[in-house]
């Protein structure tokens, strides 16, 4: 959403440059305008205001305060900012220092060094409110009011500190400077009429600014454009829609269950009737529009009368109640009529939401005679909003995860904006939303009141997105190893991760130093690691990452993100983008979109970006004809601001030279490392270190395995597998004589089993005619001098051989059957069988092997 909008924003300086620096050729400004291209609206942001800045995750923008604005020689618009950290930006282990839950609205005054405070103006989305609070104060509101944040503590990367007085006053001042904005009001404990005046003034200002825009011709039109005009407004309206939506759904439920608080529903119906009357009275052109509004409001009155208004109704006279319903009557009316008012409502609503904390203190006195129409509407809107917010509080008390439900409502109401009356469509959509990963926490299934009603409507079975990838738990616990051999087998399994990797200390240190230096410098780089399979490349790299993470946790290193992709686990090289982006930001997009997003992410000077360590396993699988995946991967670290460290792992040492284009290979750089196959001593050490003090193997036996494997491949996996097999053989044998130690004999048997060529055995166990057929082939080869023959030729030899042996000669089809059987075992290589007797035959093994196998008979 944000990204889409962002692309259509234009940034213009506001006013003349206040000062200029000749030497640096910079021009300083005191504000700028954000012009949204789509709706032709402008928002002005000045120095001192708080802004939201685009982060890598579109759903979670950063909070910052504008300190300075300037344009450099290259006409780039820059801004100097003071960062505020969100709780999610604080490392997990540091969050414990707070010893309390942190609400989503709380941010921390950021004093972490190393974050770039000079950002591009284009990354600023909009302005927000940040309110400083004293340490003892509680947050006024625990609602989902996103655009307002609260600051209590500062965060310097190591610990949290209370705000120093001058920072506090500075922040406060900054707030005041932004025009006595209504959001600051909740700070004052008294709710006086003066404030309402101020609010009114403020809203009038907003109204004017809106009416200046040309598009107030049609209600719906303007409502839409208003919602689009700026992001902030959109958010507001969305929330209103959202809040209205929830009660509506609730209301429906309530009507369905008449037993539940009959009084509440009754009075609710009264109000409903009143509203209906009003609806008839008022003849507005946009009927559909109003309908929606009404349903929106409809939800709130019954609730109000049943729950939140009880304390009030005690104090209020019946007349007061009457006026209340009057005002309610007015509010939809005014909303339907004037979008500017609607907007005002939104603003008011937010204020009142902030106020709910103080609501109880407030007396009912501020219910004066309605002075003006607008005033009245304003009051009503406050009311409604209060009720809604109160409802919300109640709800959130009832259900802990109201957040998720409101999230889903939030997006469904968004659709409502687009297409109000198209209910079936919305239904299907909302069922989709219902299954967004966010709401996948099992409880969400029953939270939103509307879901049970709407999900059955979706006719086509859709893949539940909230499916948690999980293998069912076993009903019985796995048995513990009973004896020494089983214990040994467990430790020898390849998956058993040892505490340290023996024999790879040097490589470990090299990689560690490489990554560590890059981390400290805050730069990017590539490293290419090669080696034959089973030499511990991936294990070593993982070990390095684990150590680095440990160090980062102990504050010896700057913290970093760690991503791993494996070429073999991708269905397509381009999927790499998708996976990286999902790891980084949690977004799920298509491959091409992910590529552009990533390119943008790594090439722009991202504020507050952590270093990313990316492991690319099985690099050769990422090869494409144009090599653009590899090119991009290795190009990003060379970008100035990327802070990306890539560790590429592959099997072949000369991969860069062999398959990469020059431009890719040069970007990969010359930081190479190759893992040599293990020598027998190293293998021996690996096995003994895994077994540590278990007395399961003879020394000689271990040495035999190591030597054998080192001579063949140097693959540690093979080595461990042989040992494991040997323990099995030993166990099997020891059932007769109880010797619980693996000896040379067992090892030899295991090795034979694994490495012996199957062909000889296969030939020996073949049937008589198969053997004769093989002999015939040999004879034919010798006769013709070519290592290829047709079945016809072989058949003649076969018949001749049978005559010599004194056997009945087989028919042609029998020989064909024999031939195809041998072909299926791949003892022979056979042409496709459509040529019948003219099909060519070739041996798949050497002639000597066949001779040897047949001679022993």
């Amino acid at each position, binding site marked *: 959403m944000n990204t889409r909008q962002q692309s259509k924003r234009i940034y213009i300086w506001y006013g003349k440059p206040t000062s200029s620096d000749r030497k640096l050729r910079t021009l300083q400004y005191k504000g700028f305008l954000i012009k949204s291209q789509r709706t032709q609206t402008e928002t002005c942001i000045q120095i001192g205001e708080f802004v939201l800045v685009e982060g890598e995750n579109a759903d979670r923008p950063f909070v910052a305060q504008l300190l300075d604005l300037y344009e450099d020689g290259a006409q780039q618009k820059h801004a100097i900012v003071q960062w505020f950290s969100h709780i999610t930006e604080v490392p997990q282990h540091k969050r414990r220092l707070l010893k309390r839950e942190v609400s989503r609205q709380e941010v921390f005054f950021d004093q972490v060094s190393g974050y770039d405070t000079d950002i591009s103006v284009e990354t600023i989305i909009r302005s927000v409110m940040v309110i400083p609070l004293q340490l003892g104060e509680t947050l006024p509101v625990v609602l989902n009011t996103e655009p307002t944040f609260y600051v209590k503590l500062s965060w310097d990367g190591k610990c949290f500190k209370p705000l120093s007085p001058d920072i506090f006053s500075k922040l406060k001042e900054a707030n005041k400077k932004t025009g006595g904005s209504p959001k600051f009001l909740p700070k004052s404990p008294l709710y006086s009429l003066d404030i309402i005046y101020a609010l009114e003034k403020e809203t009038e200002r907003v109204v004017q600014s809106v009416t200046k825009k040309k598009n107030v011709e049609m209600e719906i039109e303007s409502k839409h454009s208003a919602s689009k005009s700026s992001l902030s407004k959109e958010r507001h309206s969305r929330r209103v829609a959202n809040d209205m939506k929830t009660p509506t759904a609730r209301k429906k439920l309530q009507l369905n269950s008449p037993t539940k608080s009959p009084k509440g529903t009754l009075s609710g119906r009264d109000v409903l009737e009143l509203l209906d009357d009003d609806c008839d009275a008022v003849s507005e052109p946009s009927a559909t529009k109003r309908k929606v509004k009404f349903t929106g409001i409809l939800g709130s009155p019954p609730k109000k009368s049943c729950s939140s208004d009880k304390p009030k109704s005690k104090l209020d006279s019946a007349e007061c109640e009457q006026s209340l319903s009057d005002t309610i009557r007015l509010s939809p009316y005014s909303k339907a009529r004037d979008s500017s008012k609607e907007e005002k409502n939104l603003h008011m609503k937010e204020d009142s939401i902030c106020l709910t904390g103080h609501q109880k203190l407030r007396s009912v006195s501020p219910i004066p005679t309605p002075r003006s129409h607008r005033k009245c509407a304003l009051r009503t809107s406050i009311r409604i909003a209060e009720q809604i917010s109160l409802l919300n509080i109640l709800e959130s008390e009832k259900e802990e995860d109201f957040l998720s439900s409101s999230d889903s409502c939030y997006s469904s109401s968004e659709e409502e904006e687009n297409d109000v009356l198209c209910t079936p469509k919305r239904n299907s959509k909302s069922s989709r939303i219902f299954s967004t990963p966010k709401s996948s926490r099992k409880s969400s299934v029953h939270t939103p009141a509307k879901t049970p009603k709407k999900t059955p409507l979706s006719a086509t079975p859709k893949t539940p997105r909230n499916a948690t990838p999980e*293998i069912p738990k076993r009903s019985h616990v796995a*048995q513990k190893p009973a004896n020494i051999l089983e214990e040994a087998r467990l430790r020898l*399994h390849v998956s058993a991760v040892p505490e340290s990797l023996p024999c790879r200390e040097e490589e470990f240190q090299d990689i560690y130093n490489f990554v560590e230096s890059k981390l400290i410098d805050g730069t990017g780089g590539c490293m290419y690691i090669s080696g034959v399979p089973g030499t511990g490349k991936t294990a070593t790299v993982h070990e390095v990452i684990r150590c680095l993470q440990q160090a980062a946790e102990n504050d010896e290193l700057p913290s970093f993100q760690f991503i791993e992709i494996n070429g*073999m*686990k991708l269905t397509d090289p381009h999927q790499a983008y998708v996976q990286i982006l999902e790891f980084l930001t949690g977004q799920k997009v298509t491959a091409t979109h992910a590529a552009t997003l990533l390119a943008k992410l790594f090439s722009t000077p991202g504020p507050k970006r952590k270093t990313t360590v990316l492991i690319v396993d099985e690099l050769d699988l990422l090869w494409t004809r144009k090599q653009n995946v590899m090119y991009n991967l290795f190009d990003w670290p060379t970008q100035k601001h990327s802070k990306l460290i890539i560790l590429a792992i592959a099997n072949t040492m000369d991969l860069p030279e062999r398959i990469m284009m020059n431009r890719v290979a040069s970007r990969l750089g010359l930081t190479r490392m190759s893992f040599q196959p293990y020598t027998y001593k190293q293998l021996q050490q690996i096995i003994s270190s895994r077994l540590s003090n278990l007395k399961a193997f003879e020394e000689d036996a271990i040495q035999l395995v190591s030597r054998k494997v080192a001579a063949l491949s140097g693959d540690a996996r093979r080595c461990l597998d042989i040992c494991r097999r040997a323990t099995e053989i030993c166990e099997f044998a020891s059932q007769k004589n109880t010797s619980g130690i693996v000896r040379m004999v067992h090892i030899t048997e295991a090795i034979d089993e694994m490495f012996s060529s199957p062909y000889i055995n*296969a030939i020996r166990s073949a049937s008589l005619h198969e053997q004769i057929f093989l002999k015939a082939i040999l004879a034919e080869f010798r006769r013709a001098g070519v290592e290829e023959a047709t079945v016809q030729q072989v058949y003649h030899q076969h018949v001749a051989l049978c005559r010599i042996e004194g056997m009945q000669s087989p028919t042609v089809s029998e020989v064909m059957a024999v031939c195809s059987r041998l072909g299926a*075992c791949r003892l022979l290589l056979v042409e496709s069988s459509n040529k019948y007797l003219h099909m060519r035959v070739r041996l798949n093994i050497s002639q000597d092997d066949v001779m040897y196998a047949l001679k022993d008979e």
Partner: protein
Amino acid sequence: VQRILRERFCHHCATGKLFGIEHQYKHLLELLKRTTLHGESNSALIIGPRGSGKTTLLNHVLKELMGIKQVRENLLQVHLNGLLQTNDKVALKEITRQLHLENVVGDKVFGSFAENLVFLLEALRKGDRSSSCPVLFVLDEFDLFVHHKNQTLLYNLFDISQSAQTPVTVIGLTCRQDILELLEKRVKSRFSHRQIYLMNSFDFKQYIKIFKEQLSLPADFPDESFAQKWNNNVKV
């Protein structure tokens, strides 16, 4: 009589005895027992020419395993056939379906290949040795899986069996003797190199014995005198 014999010959249920492969039988049984009871991951290939009883062997072993209550409640089985699952995409959907993972809707699996792969890998990664159900993958016509693009499926299956994830046993059935040479080296490295060879090198007498045993009627046949007569005729 007809019914019994037809069942015995035409259906692949594990009835009757096995001949000459007691050793292999024990080996495979031990292997699967360790997977199901101890949660140890393994991989093995059963190699033998056509008609040598590869599937029969496996069925016998599974039948005995299912006799153990603990195994019956735990083991998840996934049967794939190289002739049916002609590419990784189909195979993946089939695996997900047979595992009854949560993205299965009414016997069908939706979503793209990439999504499914990520989902399955994620699912298998979440488990660990002691807590999650062991999964048995049986790949019939294993040699056909080798020809899939990049051998992605095999790599991932073997990789899971070599790492501390959900306990997995991969059993491949094939008739090709050169199967190991077809595996890519990184796939080969992850394969545990357990091969069970089946050679039916019986002589004439053994064959006769086998057929006699197959034809003779069981002791609990309702008509006892008829069974006696039949069996005597078979022996002659």
